[in-house]
């Protein structure tokens, strides 16, 4: 039987606000237990929640980035259930009037064609505390309780584990670009509940879905999906029905297992949160916030390829980081040569940041300086080696390349007569090497080029040197 896989994802993204969703405690990862808490996030008697404006703004930005409609009226609701990691035994979330509706994420689907994975909605809620299971007891740490979580719910438009990862990858990139989350998967900044079902191909009705909860890593999600799809296929082929249940992914056994069933778990008795007033965002406010929105990464890549004539691969590397992309574009515009700028940024500049362990933004190198340097190179005012030699200085101390070149007389020497003099001097000083070359040792030429460059203090035009050497050694 040929089955179609149907996958939907509910992704929780931790927002990188300075404070929690409903109180002024700092958000932080790895702090000692119960050190970022207050009466509100601990659910003490008498405590009341207050809405973090920045969390609302971040969610609206994320929604705009994903092409959602921002709700004119939104509110919070209480989701009531008892659990040790819940400090109030209800979670403040949004049920029927979330902040963002609709929207979509473009991915390369099965077969390579582009497809849009539709978003159902995005809502805001608060995270719960952390349970640590020990021998004979469990410990609760409420540091994480109250952290703002943006829940992005997709429609069941995904058709394979690969598509699911493509979706999550694109989503993650956009959240980082929008500046709303670090999306550090190891720290649990982005967790997904995965819903997967199978239906005979051509059938409209959905099959029974199984939920795999609270997954962090993309590799884990991929593996869990592959396992679950295979498990469901085997069951259906054998004539067994799929049980609608929640399962968890065991990273050691590499299997999904049913979670302990929570009888009567589903009646959350939602009702509107009486301690919080509604959110009514004007078109003006949304437009104001939209100004801070960057270009979506995929769109930026497309534009960079078209605008600067660089290959898709380059655009991919350069747009990995918004700041890097900004740097590249400013450099390309300054020197007027996109490909040259992209080669230099990808190779020389990134190599320097790696070698020095200094981020580009922390260095003294500006796009203007790099652009000017590349202009000098293109105009053949300086040669390649000179340009490469100047880069570290610009990186460390900054400066005006044209002025430096003029001051120190670093201009390329292209006068044939002058270069010829250097060539003659090098040949005269290295008779054995000349003999080796004439005896057939090709590599000796490279050595001689080096010697000529040395004679010229690195300023001779390398092309001219090559030309003249060949002529004289012929």
């Amino acid at each position, binding site marked *: 039987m040929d089955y179609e896989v149907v996958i939907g994802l509910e992704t929780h993204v931790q927002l990188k606000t300075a404070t929690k969703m409903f109180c002024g405690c700092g958000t932080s990862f790895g702090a000692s237990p119960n050190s970022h808490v207050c009466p509100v996030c601990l659910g003490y008697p008498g405590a009341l929640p207050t809405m973090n404006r920045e969390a609302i703004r971040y969610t609206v930005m994320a929604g705009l980035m994903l092409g959602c409609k921002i709700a004119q009226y939104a509110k919070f609701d209480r989701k009531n259930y008892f659990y040790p990691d819940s400090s109030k035994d209800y979670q403040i979330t949004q049920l029927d009037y979330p902040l963002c509706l609709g929207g979509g994420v473009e991915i390369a689907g099965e077969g390579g064609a582009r497809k849009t994975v539709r978003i159902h909605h995005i809502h805001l809620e608060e995270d719960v505390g952390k349970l640590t299971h020990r021998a004979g007891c469990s410990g609760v740490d409420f540091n994480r309780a109250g952290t703002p979580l943006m829940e992005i719910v997709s429609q069941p438009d995904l058709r394979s584990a690969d598509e699911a990862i493509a979706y999550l990858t694109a989503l993650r990139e956009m959240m980082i670009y929008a500046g709303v989350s670090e999306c550090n998967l190891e720290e649990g900044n982005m967790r997904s509940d995965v819903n997967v079902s199978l239906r005979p191909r051509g059938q409209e009705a959905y099959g029974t879905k199984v939920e795999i909860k609270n997954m962090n890593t993309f590799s884990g999600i991929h593996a869990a999906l592959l396992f679950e799809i295979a498990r469901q296929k085997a069951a259906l082929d054998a004539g067994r029905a799929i049980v609608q249940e929640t399962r968890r992914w065991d990273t050691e056994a590499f299997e999904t297992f049913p979670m302990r069933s929570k009888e009567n778990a589903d009646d959350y008795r939602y009702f509107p949160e009486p301690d919080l007033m*509604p959110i009514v965002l004007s078109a003006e406010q949304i437009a104001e916030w939209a100004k801070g929105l960057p270009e979506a990464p995929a769109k930026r890549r497309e534009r960079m390829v078209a605008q600067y004539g660089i290959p898709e691969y380059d655009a991919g590397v350069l747009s990995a980081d918004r700041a890097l992309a900004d740097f590249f574009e400013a450099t390309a515009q300054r020197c007027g040569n996109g490909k040259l700028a992209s080669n230099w940024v990808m190779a020389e500049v990134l190599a320097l940041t790696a070698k020095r362990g200094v981020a580009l933004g922390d260095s003294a190198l500006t796009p203007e300086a790099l652009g000017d340097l590349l202009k000098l190179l293109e105009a053949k005012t300086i040669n390649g080696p000179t340009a490469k030699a100047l880069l570290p200085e610009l990186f460390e101390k900054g400066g005006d390349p044209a002025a430096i070149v003029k001051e120190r007389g670093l201009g390329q020497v292209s006068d044939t007569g002058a270069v010829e003099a250097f060539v003659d001097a090098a040949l005269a000083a290295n008779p054995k090497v000349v003999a080796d070359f004439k005896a057939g040792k090709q590599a000796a030429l490279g050595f001689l080029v080096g010697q000529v460059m040395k004679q010229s203090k690195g300023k001779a035009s390398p092309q001219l040197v090559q030309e003249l050497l060949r002529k004289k050694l012929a």
Partner: protein
Amino acid sequence: MAGFDIDRVAHLARLALTDAERQTFGAQLETIVAYVDKIAELDVEGLPATLHGHAVNNIFREDVPVEGLPTAVALANAPARVEDEIRMPRVVE
């Protein structure tokens, strides 16, 4: 009123009831529910809900950290602790 399942409601509310309580509360609550059923008499078609005593919107807090409780204070009220965490019976997921 049909439908007041005391065991289900008590479980949702995490209340253990004695048999006597199940009887007494069950009966009392059926009476009370029958009484509050009175609101079914009214026509509420098209009426908005009153969720609050007043209607203002957009009451926000700025994203500026405020000092909370020191760990010792936060844990001082905990009935049981294990290191710096609040101790609970072993939770089975």
